[in-house]
């Protein structure tokens, strides 16, 4: 990742601004039915973005040991709950696993960035290990996103719930966010920090943002009531 150019201010995300971006993000999520909501903690009034979803996995069990291609034995197909299970289950026995995923976005006041917490478990409550979660990330993401602006995924205590979660480290978040945001401001385009950040880091851990988060300029969207610069026909990520 390139360093900030001289004269480019480093964008600092204040907590209030984080909450505003989250509010905007949730509005958009509600419009497209993406399932994000805001959770407020009762004691201190801070909060976080939250999304849960279920994933159905078909694990193929070979009918007999004479399987020529050994790769098929451990094949795992990920499908969304809405999609129908495909024909691959016709050959051999299929074990269906349902996995419950939880994603939380919290604000780190120490680093002034959002942080992604996540965990997954089977329906019987058994949690997935980091390895098992990693295997469910689409193969192409595994390769190219390993180049991304983050360090590692570790297990940590959730700062509000006090339970073990996996966390994507915020180390170089500000680098890549700053450069995109400052260029967008130069062109008077509004970009939602959360949408930008989540669409970049989410896929690493199996969290995808539908393309609907990106929408056309306000002239084409009569439902939009946020302040926009007129005459800009560029793509606006709300």
């Amino acid at each position, binding site marked *: 990742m390139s360093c900030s150019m001289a004269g480019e201010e480093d964008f600092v995300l204040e907590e209030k601004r984080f909450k505003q971006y989250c509010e905007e993000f949730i509005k958009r999520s509600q419009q497209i039915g993406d399932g994000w909501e805001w959770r407020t903690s009762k*004691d*201190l009034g801070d909060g976080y973005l939250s999304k849960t979803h279920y994933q159905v996995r078909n694990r193929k069990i070979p009918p007999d040991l004479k399987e020529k291609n050994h790769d098929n034995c451990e094949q795992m197909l990920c499908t969304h709950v809405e999609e129908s299970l495909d024909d691959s289950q016709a050959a051999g026995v299929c074990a269906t696993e349902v996995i419950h995923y939880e994603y939380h976005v919290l604000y780190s*006041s*120490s*680093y002034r960035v959002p942080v992604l917490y996540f965990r997954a478990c089977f329906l019987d409550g058994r949690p997935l290990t980091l390895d098992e979660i990693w295997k469910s990330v689409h193969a192409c993401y595994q390769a190219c996103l390993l180049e991304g602006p983050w360090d590692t995924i570790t*297990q940590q*205590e959730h700062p509000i*719930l006090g*339970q*073990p979660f996996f966390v994507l480290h915020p180390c170089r978040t500000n680098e890549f966010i700053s450069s995109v945001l400052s260029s967008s401001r130069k062109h008077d385009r509004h970009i939602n920090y959360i949408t930008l950040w989540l669409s970049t880091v989410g896929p690493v851990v199996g969290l995808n943002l539908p393309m609907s988060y990106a929408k056309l300029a306000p002239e084409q969207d009569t439902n939009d009531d946020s302040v926009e610069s007129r005459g800009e026909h560029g793509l606006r990520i709300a």
Partner: protein
Amino acid sequence: MTDDKDVLRDVWFGRIPTCFTLYQDEVTEREAEPYYLLLPRISYLTLVTDKVKKHFQKVMRQEEVSEIWFEYEGTPLKWHYPIGLLFDLHASNTALPWSITVHFKNFPEKDLLHCHSKDVIEAHFMACIKEADALKHKSQVINEMQKKDHKQLWMGLQNDKFEQFWAINRKLMEYPPEDSGFRYIPFRIYQATTERPFIQKLFRPIASGGELHTLGDLLKDVCPSAITPEASGARLQTTEPQHICAAEVSVKATRSTNFLSDAGSL
């Protein structure tokens, strides 16, 4: 800092006499004797209990042994909290030695982080140091250090070497003469009674008028229920007193590069 060396040493060398007993449902080939150990307040359970593990594994069958975990009166103990904090939080009102139960089965996945190796403890410790420096110095001091300095901090802790640790830590405890303190004070306030594990907020060491903030100012600001008995109401009626382990506010005394200070509990 140097006049506080006595306090620094007292904090570093603080110990808690502990009695480890194997959980009664664990299957053993012989009777398991309890194991006694003086635990360093500033260290971590999984870092200092190799001997405890060896002792109990001697009377167990190999297949019965998986990841070790500790529990006090039914509460799983979070190994990633400093030992002194765990004691202050759960057992400071009880008689010594501190009685901890040892488990090798049924790891409580919903409560405890896994600790498969010393590397995990090191990574956690260093993450705390780094976050504290992000608050104190915008990460400038920790980032300017070489990897070997980071290693020295960890080795000092692991091997109980006060001088080795403080040779590096003192740099993390300094600030430029023109400043009157750190940018923000790294602190965490733990309460056994809340779901939220700790309170952590941005807090400056200097008030707007230029006076140094005190611990009382900090508590009033971030945890007022701790000092106004009227506000905490029913809690005073319970048998267990509201217990807060306050971390260090002033710059002096302690290993406040990490979040916890053992300046004592309130």
